[in-house]
């Protein structure tokens, strides 16, 4: 017989996103039929009453209190759920707290503790990032600046100062790097090898390094530059220094550059430097056309093509069984991406096939999406418009839930295209979350996904792929393959096949 369990936390305030996450976790506990975690106002008691989970204890809550209310299948399940819910509520509210008394509070103290250090990772609010980076430079450290919201003029000035001292500033807004095999910030566990990467794009570096790793090769260093390094105002200062470093590195045999298309003058500057190297280069200025490449460089239109050129061979593509796929709905593809460059790559795949596509971050040749857009649409959910004040979808996959539900409910959408990005910094189980979001869906759009990661990542890729496939998702070997598959499934011929099959 169902039981109602209420617990009151007096005068307790929790962050909204924490409340939401805890509510969801408590509702998912074994034996729990319904649950809520909400302030004890009169209006909220109406909601809990309507949901059938308000008990006598909950009725006594004051507006400043927090009510935990749940209905469980029996008393034992209720008691177990309450114990687990209390444990979840009692965890430290601030991630990482408390800070150890031994943790250095300043860069200077950190260098005293670790005199051999030569790189500082700066992650502070943007207003203070430049000051901290300058402190790092003063201490003779290279700086990786994870922080964003730094004015571009300050970025340029900081990089000029660093260059004058022979030091490199990766960033601001540098989310990914792998230095001497060590993943920094959002990065994957890949073996060391002879391919160097210089990238203004975090997920671009991740996809290329993972494709290289899964093909059995490795990465010497992957140097992030920050998204604006190739803009005219900055003049590719970090990119050029990174090329110098990899050119001089005996362990690096081939260099991949990955970025959005740079300003024309900056592109010339970078390609001139590439031409002075004796090493082969792959240039993936994704979306750029007609690059004046030197003889030692080849252009790659996609991240997958960049990995293939660096490897010197095509990547094997796992055959997928399409015979049972039913695509009788509309012919549009809706891409919902956590990775910005993965969204860009998908657009490139569609444009190269002559198909119109729209996006909130359109590449040349794509339209800007608006409320009235129909047809193929690729949305970068990591764009600032979606992430200000909210976690990035790579950290909190629930950011994708509402757009995914909308796409599933849209009869015009025949194929939904997704990316799952693994590695350090990413959510511990993004595929598990996605599988849960897709659970119970009826026949509808076909779901196609790619998984950027390796089996050495904290979330082993093969386990994540298995979870997706169990949820009925078609998993392609790369993001470019996933985009091509989505395109093929959405074609009129595929839809006719689907209609005939029904």
């Amino acid at each position, binding site marked *: 017989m169902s039981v109602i369990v209420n617990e009151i936390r007096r005068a307790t*305030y929790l962050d909204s996103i924490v409340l939401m996450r805890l509510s969801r976790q408590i509702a998912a506990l074994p034996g729990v039929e319904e649950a809520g975690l909400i*302030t004890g*106002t009169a209006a909220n008691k109406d909601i809990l009453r309507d949901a059938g989970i308000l008990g006598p204890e909950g009725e006594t809550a004051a507006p400043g209190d927090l009510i935990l209310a749940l209905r469980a299948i029996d008393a034992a399940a209720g008691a177990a759920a309450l114990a687990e819910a209390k444990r979840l509520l009692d965890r430290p509210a601030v991630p990482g707290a408390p800070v150890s008394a031994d943790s250095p509070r300043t860069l200077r103290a950190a260098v005293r503790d670790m005199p051999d250090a030569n790189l500082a990772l700066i992650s502070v609010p943007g207003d203070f990032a430049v000051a901290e980076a300058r402190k790092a430079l003063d201490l003779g450290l290279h700086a990786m600046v994870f922080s964003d919201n730094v004015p571009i003029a300050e970025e340029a000035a900081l990089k000029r100062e660093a260059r004058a001292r022979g030091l490199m500033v990766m960033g601001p807004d540098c989310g990914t790097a792998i230095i001497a095999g060590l993943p920094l910030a959002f990065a994957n566990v890949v073996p060391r090898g002879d391919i160097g990467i210089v990238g203004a794009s975090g997920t671009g570096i991740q996809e290329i390094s993972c494709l290289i790793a899964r093909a059995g090769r490795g990465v010497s260093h992957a140097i992030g530059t920050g998204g604006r390094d190739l803009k005219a105002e900055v003049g590719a200062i970090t990119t050029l220094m990174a090329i110098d470093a990899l050119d001089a590195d005996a362990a690096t045999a081939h260099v991949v550059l990955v970025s959005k298309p740079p300003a024309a003058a900056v592109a010339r500057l970078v390609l001139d430097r590439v031409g002075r190297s004796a090493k082969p280069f792959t240039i993936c200025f994704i979306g750029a056309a007609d690059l004046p490449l030197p003889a030692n460089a080849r252009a790659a239109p996609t991240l997958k093509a960049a990995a293939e050129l660096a490897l010197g061979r095509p990547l094997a593509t796992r055959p997928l069984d399409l015979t049972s796929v039913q695509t009788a709905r509309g012919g549009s593809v809706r891409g919902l991406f956590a990775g910005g460059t993965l969204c860009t790559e998908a657009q490139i795949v569609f444009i190269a096939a002559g198909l119109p596509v729209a996006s909130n971050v359109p590449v040349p040749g794509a339209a800007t999406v608006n409320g009235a857009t129909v047809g193929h649409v690729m949305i970068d959910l990591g764009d600032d418009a979606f992430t200000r004040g909210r976690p990035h979808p790579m950290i909190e996959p629930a950011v994708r839930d509402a*757009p995914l539900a909308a796409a599933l409910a849209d009869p015009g959408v025949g194929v939904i295209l997704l990316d799952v990005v693994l590695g350090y910094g990413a959510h511990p189980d993004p595929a598990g979350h996605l599988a849960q979001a897709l659970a119970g869906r009826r026949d509808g759009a076909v779901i196609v996904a790619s998984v950027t990661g390796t089996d050495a990542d904290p979330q082993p890729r093969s386990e994540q792929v298995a979870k997706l496939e169990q949820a009925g998702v078609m998993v392609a070997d790369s993001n470019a393959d996933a985009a091509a598959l989505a395109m093929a499934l959405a074609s009129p011929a595929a839809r006719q096949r689907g209609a005939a099959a029904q």
Partner: protein
Amino acid sequence: MTLASDAIDTASIALRRRVVPIVRAGVLAREMCRRGGRGDVAAVFARSLYVRIGDEFLCIGEPGIGNGPLTLIASARISGLGLRRGQAASIAEQCIVIGDLRFDLDRCETWRRPRWPGPIVRLGDIGAAIARRAATQSPPDSLAYALFAANDTPLARIARPRVACFAAWLSEQRHDSSCPAQANAVTSLIGLGPGLTPSGDDFLMGALALLDAVGQTKIHAILAQAVTDAAPTLTSPLSACFLRAAAAGHVGESLHDAVASILVGNGDAAVAAARRVGHTSGWDMLAGVAVTLRIVGS
């Protein structure tokens, strides 16, 4: 212990204090500091903390949380300060002291909400466009989603008739602003829904901001009075503090930007600004703006 040794202890504690500069202070937060007093840390989050002084709250946060009337922007990573709920706080014009931390207001700027843009260019059907956006883009646990998307949740079942009642009251007020606020039309929304500030409170903050921005001063005054009277008993003390501020015309930077964008016909910018506020709060504020706009914007 002698007085002299007390003084020595106090001096040595002062010398050991860590100093965190406050770079900007919302106008009401600054006023609270001028009044001074003693309080306690009511909550500590990843990027902000709340100090309670009697019935009032002020927020100390990182620059990323944005400016607000009750907010002090600190140049520090809040999660690295080691603060905890329940710690005593001493508030004075030039500083706030919590444990060994001194938040220094010596060189901070005062932040005030900018003036509303004018004249209004066009409102058109921007409210309906925002409602359509909310139906597909707002978080499923928000009031905005409950109102504008086709779903059936306890929140949607309770909230829809209450919002309809509010809209009907607003419509009456528009035609005859001498009639008093119907108790239920406003109060049934206060304290309603999830979040640190309940969704219904966010909704009303959005409605108040829009009424202020379009110059509906009489209706704004009636709604403000109703909210101010009822909030202390119907919602959490923290949310009541924000509601009182909104009723007095003080809203945060992001809500201001959202409403100002609507006034110049830029729905995309309005949604982008709203997304900066909390998990559901921005969308719920926009819901209040959209519903109010439908009544007073025509």
